[in-house]
């Protein structure tokens, strides 16, 4: 469906006194999103994950690499020709409070794209009122009651309901891919699972593929089976594989730091014995010839300072962990970019897992 090959994006900033500075937002990201599949990107603020989401929806350009949608290379096309491919990819924004126009009712918000879509498809039995039917259908699909929601303004809905309206709006143009950029981070914890369940449902019922961008690793587990997880750091993917593989047996120190930062439900979970944290805060300005994470890495060696690691399959260099997965079964092979990968138990463990079940 979507294939990204070495996407890069560089920004130039011109300070008033400091001269030109180059910011590498993305340094060659590649991934393949199959039809109905799911790819999650995790990373901290400023790692380039939002830039990636914008590039995938055509809101931002890329200056290197290639984006292939349905087998068509987009960089060769003129902007007008690209539009029809980007229409198949729709974005769910982070903040449902600012993503909806406060002066328009939900009916107006959904009506415009639906009418446009109906004109595009031509008059296949679509009367003037057909879009309203479709709006009701979509709202029901996202778990809202059409009659109650249509006449309302965004401020009359709760955060969870608004996010569902945003999803319904994304679905008006019959997309094949949804990009969810921090789609649940502004929503109450109690409502998050509902939205995640809906995204999973859309995958299985409509076959929509999903790109899930988040800083909260735990939510990436809830978008459904067969999902891949890519850990992105300063614009570079440092570890990737099947979501469960990466979460349960991370080998890159950055992934391990991220997973260590996930709060432990004390009483229900025990912290992992090898919990770790970066030695200092992120500073995008540090330039290093070696590993990008080296300045913050608790396990860095001299070699890390000089040699830039690239993604290699786990176990290929003899340092692997789970012997069972070392063969790299299937397409989603567990890969990492670390010179000294080591398994560390950083994820919380359920208290009495298995033994004293309820």
């Amino acid at each position, binding site marked *: 469906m979507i294939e990204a090959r070495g996407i890069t994006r560089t920004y130039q900033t011109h300070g008033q006194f400091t001269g030109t500075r180059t910011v590498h937002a993305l340094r060659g990201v590649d991934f393949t999103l199959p039809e109905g599949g799911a790819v999650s990107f995790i990373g901290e603020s400023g790692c380039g994950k939002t830039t990636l989401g914008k590039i995938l929806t055509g809101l931002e350009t890329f200056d290197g690499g290639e984006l292939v949608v349905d087998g068509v290379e987009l960089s060769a096309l003129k902007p007008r020709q690209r539009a029809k491919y980007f229409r198949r990819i729709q974005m769910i924004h982070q903040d449902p409070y600012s993503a909806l126009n406060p002066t328009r009712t939900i009916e107006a918000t959904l009506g415009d794209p639906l009418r446009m879509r109906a004109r595009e498809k031509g008059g296949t039995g679509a009367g003037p009122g057909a879009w309203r039917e479709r709006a009701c259908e979509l709202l029901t699909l996202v778990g809202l009651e059409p009659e109650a929601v249509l006449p309302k303004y965004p401020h009359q809905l*709760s*955060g969870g*309901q608004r996010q569902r309206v945003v999803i319904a709006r994304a679905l008006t143009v019959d997309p094949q891919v949804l990009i969810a950029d921090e789609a649940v981070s502004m929503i*109450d914890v109690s409502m998050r699972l*509902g939205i995640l369940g809906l995204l999973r449902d859309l995958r299985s019922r409509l076959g929509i593929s999903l790109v899930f961008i988040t800083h909260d690793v735990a939510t990436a587990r809830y978008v459904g089976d067969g999902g891949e997880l890519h850990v992105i750091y300063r614009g570079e993917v440092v570890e990737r594989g099947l979501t469960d593989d990466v979460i349960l047996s991370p080998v890159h120190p950055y992934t391990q730091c991220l997973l260590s930062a*996930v709060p432990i439900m004390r*009483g229900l979970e025990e912290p992992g014995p090898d919990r770790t944290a*970066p030695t200092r805060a992120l500073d995008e300005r540090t330039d290093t010839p070696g590993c990008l994470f080296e300045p913050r890495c608790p396990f860095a060696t001299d070699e890390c300072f000089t040699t830039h690691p690239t993604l290699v399959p786990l176990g290929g260099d003899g340092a692997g962990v789970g012997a069972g997965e070392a063969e790299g079964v299937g397409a989603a092979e567990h890969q990492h970019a670390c010179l000294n990968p080591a398994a560390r138990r950083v994820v919380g463990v359920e208290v009495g897992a298995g033994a004293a079940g309820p």
Partner: protein
Amino acid sequence: MSEVQVRGLTVEYQTSAGWLPAVAGASLDLRAGEITGLVGESGSGKSTLALSLLNAVPAPGRIAAGSIEVAGVGDVVRLTGRQLRKVRGGELGYVFQASQNSLNPLKTIGKQLLDLGRSHEVSDLRALIARAKDLANRMGLDGDRVLDSYQHELSGGMRQRVGIVFALVLNAKVLILDEPTTALDMLSQASVLDIVRKVHDENQLSTLIITHDIGAISEIADRLAVMYGGRIVEDGPLLDVLRRPTHPYTKALIGATARITGDVDAARPLPGRPPDLTTVARVGCVFRERCPFAVAACADTEPPLEAWEAGRRRACHVEPSTVLAGQPGTPAAVGEPA
């Protein structure tokens, strides 16, 4: 030993439908040396409760009933004018929700600190600056650099720490943090939580953390109070409440949290939507519409918050053992889904 005692606190807001309670008859103790977590969904009244600890409920709200006794200060509800201003930021340190946005963008942090000192009539401003630097250094910030910075030069996590410095620099004994980790990414969240625990222990504070994220709070709190529809529905020692939640809401909230361990399919979203000021039930239990255990009594009588075991309180008609044993069955969901 309680540093702060909230008793029968009712806070109302004026709406077109009359005065409606956002907090109704809440009672809560903040004990010396303990971190209390107050958890609730948006609209549960948790921020209103926190603001009333400063007697700072914004118009059109008012504290209609109840008392808030702070050790060494007296009843905050009765304070006015100068006395009240001295207590705010003095004995009671408050870190505001989105403290990123509560700093003045036109002044350096140091200048704002001096403003704080002058308004509290601190005679030795040099000592104040020294103390602020010391606090900042202990939180892993570079004190000198931070005081010379404008707020836009600091990251989200750093601003949150500056908020904590401001709250503690006048030797507050009580620290209140409203949503300290919302809008921070996982790594900054973990370091801010670490720092809160550290300054709490070092200064022997009584800390109240308000949040909607039961996962984040469970990392550092000693006690947990759960709020729903303006009522505190359950409280007790954190580990015990997490292991044995006896209010159906607490149980549902724990079950609805996205976690990194455990069975993905076992997690269930809470049905229905949280009530707000106008939709909260006037008679009976406020949670009954979303409650899988609701019985007939829930519709007409509001359950009082009562101790059922040493150190544990709950407000529910159903027996604790039933809730503990009960499977989270299909709840009688009424109204629209969230």
